[in-house]
């Protein structure tokens, strides 16, 4: 016996049942999920939409640290000073986004719902590999929009309950998924941020040291890349730093991040870092 199909309580026959997939459910219910629709980007110049920039992730002794700056740019202008680019995904993972802000956030929202929906329907959470794969499919579905300038390139990191270790994945616009052993960086400042992490990275870092390294990487990226926002001491805006381990996803409180930034600035000052930054801005 099947339930009569009522519009507001969605039930399906055996053939068209979307199973535990939320995007499948959206399609079956006739609600458009804009991610990946070829016409979603439309025609015309989209370079003026807000873009989020630099994110980094690195593994440490107990799991993974992810961090992202807070700036969104539209062309040469700063469009937002305090957007967030690192989000929880499930209980033990996080996703960090670089690219067009609107589609990125929608993708994150769909991804979060996809994971939660799966967990509720199936009665147990999706494995970390399954989650990474889901995100891969969403990025791939966005390819047409990406080619029109609405790029979405996420980093995905989490605690793998089966393997009992932290893992991280990098993506490209085609949905290609690359598992990284040590660290990954994305967005316009990724070259500089990635280099800082590369030089400071050691296997088995303490979680606190990993957070400091991520903060340092974002600071240096902001120093070299105009689209990356540094710590804003006047407005009290600091990058989002999260730690993911066996206990789950936990965002560092702003005062903690501020404290770490001030320590970094003090260290740079002591090392004569001021001379270095003067040299950097001397060209103007």
């Amino acid at each position: 016996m099947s339930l009569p199909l009522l519009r507001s309580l969605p039930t399906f026959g055996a053939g068209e049942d979307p199973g535990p997939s939320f995007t499948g459910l959206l399609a079956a219910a006739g609600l458009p999920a804009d991610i990946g629709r070829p016409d979603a980007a439309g025609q015309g110049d989209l370079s003026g939409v807000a873009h989020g920039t630099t994110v980094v992730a690195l593994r440490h002794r107990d799991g993974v640290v992810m961090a992202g700056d807070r700036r969104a740019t539209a062309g040469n202008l700063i469009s937002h000073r305090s957007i967030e680019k690192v989000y929880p995904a499930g209980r033990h993972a996080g996703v960090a986004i670089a690219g067009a802000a609107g589609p990125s956030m929608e993708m994150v929202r769909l991804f979060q719902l996809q994971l939660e929906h799966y967990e509720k329907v199936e009665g147990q959470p999706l494995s970390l590999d399954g989650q990474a794969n889901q995100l891969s499919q969403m990025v791939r579905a966005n390819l047409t929009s990406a080619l029109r300038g609405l790029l979405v390139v996420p980093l995905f990191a989490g605690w793998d309950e089966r393997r009992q270790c932290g893992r991280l994945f990098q993506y490209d616009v085609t949905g290609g998924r690359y598992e990284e052993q040590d660290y990954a960086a994305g967005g316009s400042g990724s070259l500089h941020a990635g280099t800082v992490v590369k030089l400071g990275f050691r296997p088995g870092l303490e979680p606190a040291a990993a957070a400091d390294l991520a903060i340092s990487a974002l600071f240096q990226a902001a120093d070299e890349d105009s689209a990356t926002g540094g710590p804003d001491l006047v407005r009290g805006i600091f990058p989002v730093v999260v730690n993911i381990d066996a206990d789950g996803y936990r965002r560092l409180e702003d005062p903690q991040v501020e404290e770490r930034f001030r320590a970094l600035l003090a260290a740079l000052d002591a090392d004569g870092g001021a001379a270095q930054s003067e040299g950097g801005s001397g060209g103007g």
Partner: protein
Amino acid sequence: MNMPFYVAPEQIMKDRADYARKGIARGKSLVAVTYRDGILLCAENVSNTLRKISEIYDRIAFAGVGKYNEFDQLRIAGVRHADLKGYAYSRQDVEARSLANQYAQILGQIFTHEMKPMEVEILVAEISDEAGTEQLFHILYDGTVNDESRWSVLGGEAEAISERLGDLHDADLDAAAALRAAVDALAGPERTLVADDLEVATLDRTLGRRCFRRLGIAEVDALLGQPRAASGEAPDGAAE
């Protein structure tokens, strides 16, 4: 040409109701009680995998007794309804009342129009930030909705269990005491139930966004291990 025998509508409805009630009475019962931090749901269930209690949304839980495949179908439809609604509007617009009405519609429709009524009784439970505003929507096989506020009992022996709960329940109980009251009411004077026989979950407003939490066997054991009188200062097992 053979004419079908005339059967009075009252008789048809009565037969269907008897059929559904018999099916439900064959299974074990379930109780939901309000307590200090929200709602505690406790079912007699020997299976560790076929659940009677589950999460629908941030603050909404589902429980069902009767035929497993039938209430599980309703559970999944509820999860879909809630997630779609939360996606289309906002998370705070998802509420138990509208879901309960949907369930009532569907059960009522099946009861009157299909050959066989659903042999289920379900519960949609919701908590809010404030204590004392818990909602328990108890929906019967024919679509009848009861809005209960302190506790709810589903299943064959509902009346006897409800009577026992009346003596034991207090909305200010902590998780351990609420579980003890629920288990004692389910078991009655002649039986003892242990953690292995139970499925326990809470909707706990101290947990943040997703308030639903399933309690493992070890945790249920630990909560039940506490002496009955020591409910005042007992460590709160639900707020880790």
